């Protein structure tokens, strides 16, 4: 296509030269957006050439082209964002390995799933507009597996009429306490990371008088994927490194605590890496810019903008976070301690935790490190120092095995489940 594009460029210039050199020209264009016009003309020509070429091959190689047309599968996988590809990648690989036809839909053009060219995987990018939503509504199959909550909830994606069973699986180590309210209400089944998630799901069902969902323990495919792909490496450092990972929105530590505690840690001689949730750069960009400006004078404070947190997690000796599930990834994959900064309850009113009596996450937070209350944040340097001097590695390993089921084989469990259902 690039070659085709170059030909189109030259073709356009050829027309242009002919136009001005043989005939008087009265053409009139905007220099500013002329470049866009140029590109569009190229695309138009490229499109035309592609269509003609396709028509030609269709005429003479009908069978070859026909075998590559879309076939719908009974299994549907839906991923709304590229950042969750880690959860799907192993499942997709296995489905292809077992030659099971399935449909794959995504609203994110950067989704790596779209790059897989397989006769069993029938992928389609859905535009994030009315056309895409119309297409979404028309999806049909026996089972729709997704890690995206909210489907069928008011104000979110509607449940496609043609889908018989809506199934959720987790993309983090958490119960549903930190899911937005009504997230899983419309789902038929939930694939659990471990039995610890049952309690919160059943509580919500009971509270809202919902039909009981079938709960199947499969494990955490994303966690397995991380374990498989992580490159552990040791860095010789003079200073200890503290990673501050903030959620986006109201439950984020940056929003609630600002950067003062980070500066304190920096002044206490720690290397500090601040990593806002990737979504923060989209929805609260100005706030992030403000925080960056406030810390710009401190050389030992750096900011991480990458999508994949594994590098900074590997570098860090300790993590400070809020309600984010990155705490458990850090604790269970890297076996390092975590400090949780308490978020005032008022900020969590839109989450399921508001309706639940207790939070599994916060219980676990106490086991993997320390929890600092909002009013006690000034003690952070002391808490960090104490925690870094306490060895917790074996304790963390035990906790991991206790809570997460089917480590390393979770994707097989999911695929096995899907085969039965389809």
């Amino acid at each position, binding site marked *: 296509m690039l070659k085709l594009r170059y*030909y189109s460029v030259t073709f356009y210039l050829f027309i242009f030269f*002919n136009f*001005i050199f*043989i005939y008087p020209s009265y053409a009139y264009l905007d220099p500013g957006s002329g470049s866009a016009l140029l590109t569009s003309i190229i695309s*138009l020509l490229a*499109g035309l050439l592609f269509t003609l070429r396709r028509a030609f091959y269709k005429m003479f190689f009908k069978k070859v082209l026909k075998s590559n047309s879309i076939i719908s599968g009974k299994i549907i996988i839906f991923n709304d964002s590229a950042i969750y590809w880690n959860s799907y990648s192993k499942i997709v690989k296995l489905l292809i390995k077992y030659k099971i036809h399935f449909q794959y839909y995504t609203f994110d053009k950067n989704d790596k799933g779209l790059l897989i060219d397989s006769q069993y995987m029938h992928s389609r990018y859905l535009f994030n507009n009315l056309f895409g939503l119309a297409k979404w509504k028309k999806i049909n199959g026996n089972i729709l597996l997704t890690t995206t909550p909210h489907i069928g909830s008011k104000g979110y994606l509607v449940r496609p009429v043609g889908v018989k069973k809506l199934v959720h699986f987790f993309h983090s180590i958490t119960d549903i306490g930190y899911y937005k309210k009504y997230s899983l209400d419309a789902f038929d089944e939930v694939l659990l990371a471990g039995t610890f998630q049952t309690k919160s799901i059943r509580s919500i069902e009971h509270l809202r008088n919902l039909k009981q969902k079938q709960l199947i323990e499969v494990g955490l495919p994303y966690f397995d994927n991380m374990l498989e792909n992580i490159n552990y490496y040791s860095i010789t450092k003079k200073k200890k490194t503290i990673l501050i990972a903030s959620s986006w929105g109201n439950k984020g530590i940056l929003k609630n605590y600002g950067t003062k505690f980070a500066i304190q840690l920096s002044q206490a001689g720690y290397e500090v890496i601040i990593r806002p949730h990737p979504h923060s750069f989209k929805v609260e960009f100005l706030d992030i810019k403000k925080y960056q400006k406030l810390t710009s004078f401190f050389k030992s404070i750096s900011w991480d903008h990458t999508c994949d947190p594994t590098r900074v997690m590997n570098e860090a000796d300790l993590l400070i976070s809020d309600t984010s599930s990155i705490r458990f990834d850090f604790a269970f994959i890297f076996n390092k301690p975590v400090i949780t900064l308490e978020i005032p309850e008022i900020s969590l009113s839109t989450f399921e935790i508001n309706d639940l009596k207790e939070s599994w996450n916060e219980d676990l937070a106490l086991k993997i490190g320390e929890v600092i209350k909002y009013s006690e944040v000034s003690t952070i340097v002391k808490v960090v120092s104490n925690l870094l001097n306490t060895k917790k590695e074996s304790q963390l390993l035990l906790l991991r095995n206790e809570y997460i089921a089917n480590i390393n084989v979770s994707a097989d469990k999911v695929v096995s489940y899907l085969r039965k259902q389809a």
Partner: protein
Amino acid sequence: MGELFIKLFEDMYLMIFSSMNSHGLSILLLSLLTSIISICLSLFFKPYIDGNKELEKIVFREIKKINSNEINSIERLIQIERLYNRFNYHPFLNFFNVLPLLFQLPFLILAYYFFSDFSSLKDQSFLFITDLSMPDKTMFTLNVLPVFMTFMSILSLFVLSSFSIDKFIRGCALAIFFFILLYQEPSSLLLFWTFNISIMFFFNLLTYLHLPINSRSSFSDTFRMITGFLINPYFLKIIILANFTFVIYGIILKYFLQYDLSFSVFLIFILFSFLLLILFCGLFFYSTNIKSFSEFTLSFKKMAIVDNISFYDGILLLLPTSFLLQIIILNSEMLGIEQIFKVFLFIFPLIVIVPIMFSLMLKFFLPPLLTFIFIISVTAFILLLPSLSFLYSWYFYADNVIPLAIFILIFGFILYLRKLDRVSLYAVTCLFFFSMVGGSTYTFYNKEDTKLKSSSLGRDKTKLLENASFVSKPDIYLLTYDAYVNAETLSNYGIDNKDQEKFLTSLGFDLYPNTYSIASSSLSTMSLVLEGSDKIHGDSFRKNTAGNSEILNLLKDNGYVTHGILKPYFFLGEKIEYDTFFPKTYPKPNITLFQSIISGAFHFDAFDERFGDFKYEEWLLEKRKSLRSKGKAPRFVYAHSPFPKHSQNSGQCLKDEVQKFSKRLKIANLEMKIDVKTIIEQNRDAIIIINGADGPYLTGDCFTLKNFYNDHEQITRLDLQDRFGTFLAIKWPQKTQNIKSNKQIITLQDTLPKIINTIFPSSQLFRKTISNKSLGILGSGPAIKNGIIQIGINKSEKLFEGVIKSVKKE
């Protein structure tokens, strides 16, 4: 529909003007309003456009990967189709990207039509602009607004979210393209458009500043990339070579072809180069990233712009060859087969040898490929100049800055494409070659004069001549004065020529004040006059003017001796059939053509005074000699004087065009008086025909009016008199003075048939009156029929009203 929108635009403008009371401010406000509308619409669709661009980027990246795989074309197509399916993509979707342009474009088109034709702007000044209806010409003859427009366009490239040298080059090329396109447009349009671009620039700047720092190119990176691209030894060497080449070319023009180069494109080029050198030096010493000159030499070498020259680069020679063939084809009527070969065989080897020779000679200075492309661009540029001069109506192209921009564009285009994809360059050169040759051939066969000669009256003249004989054989003098018109037309220019007409009537001449020519050029007019026809048989107009017309052959067959004392222009490429003729030697068409190519324009005077040995004084002596001589055999003398001569045919009137014509008219009048007296003294019974061949071309653009009117509906009576109008006075012999039909001559082409009918009554040759429909103008049908105007403002009125305006005598 279009007119309705233009009307709305005009109403909008007038509404603003009524409150502002200043045309300049109204233009700026109108530009601001249209920009705001465009920006609002663009913002609304921005998410769609951005999303689409991002999608396109991903898909193109994946296609590149597919193309790099070693698979057959069917498999490649299948993979691409599957990719399109996955991404829900089709190349047609990219037309989305052009949405902002689609919002902006209608306003710009409206502005173009509105400002090009808005008479209220005439003589209205604003800031440094003296006339908003004309190009600004603020610095000497240089238009400043287009320069500023180009500057703003290039500046806008610096606020791109992702800057790249590739985008920078393309953006600059586009800016130069628009500079060429709009350079000669009215300053009102440029003001509107430049302001529009400036607003868009500030809007883009704000958008750029609002972008997250990590998702946009920083100014320092952009600056470093441009510096890295510009500061390299080859770039500087090319500028030095270009200066050297243009200085040599300038010397040829100034000292060999005697052109005035007081303010020319070459001076601008040298100045421009000098500024570039200062810029380079400034960048070199200022930039903290530049450590050494050799570092940049190395980095530039890596850019693969200095590929080795390949055998296939010879295809590029087709580019200048196509321009050469275009010139030859369009002038083939003048040249003839033999001369075409001579021109081709003379210039073509130069096109081939010069680039190869210089590439080898300058090997120590520049890589051969760069020199080769540079010389090809120079030859292509020089061969293109005559077409450009015609297209832009330049009297002398070197007075204009556009050729410089075009040269940069040609050179840059070849160089860029050679680096990008040389196969494409070869392909496009071949396509260009064939299209130029085809286009020129098509243009040649479809021009008006050619159309005229392609049809035939279908009369078999030979049969009509059988058994016929002359009753008398008076000498016939056809004295043509180029672009001489009647007193009525002249009075419209403010020239009083009544005395000359009185002089002729006092000698017994009959005046024909209502005659016109059915053609509008000297050559076609006189060719038709000598043929006595409204259509020409055969291949060439010059065949008739060189003495081989039906009437001249008829006269010769009946004992007449023919004499031709003409301008060399009427002989070129034809065998001369007059019994005696002058000038005996004249510049060969191939030499004239070559000189015209070198000078960059085909001027009317190129075939007369400027080139060759022909001198007016010598010609005049020869004419008088011929008029005085008297032999035993009857004589037909056709003398075509170069005076008063119509305006130069550049398509732009000179400031003193009418005054110059008036001076030349005086010379023609004097020449005419002496001519007539000379003949009458020797030969009282001769038939003397005094005529003009076409109009003086003093109205509108002093040429075809294509630069002055949008269509033929705006043409006036004077425009038609100025082109088709002629002069005709005949002194009939005593015996034939009372023949009524002789008084009825409508078109100039009817003159000789009337005379043949008088002296040759038994012939049936001209019993049928020839058509009196003139040719069209600006694509119209016949402009004049039976002396009645058929087109324009004075449609259905007489071409000549018979009213001679009173003019104050000088």
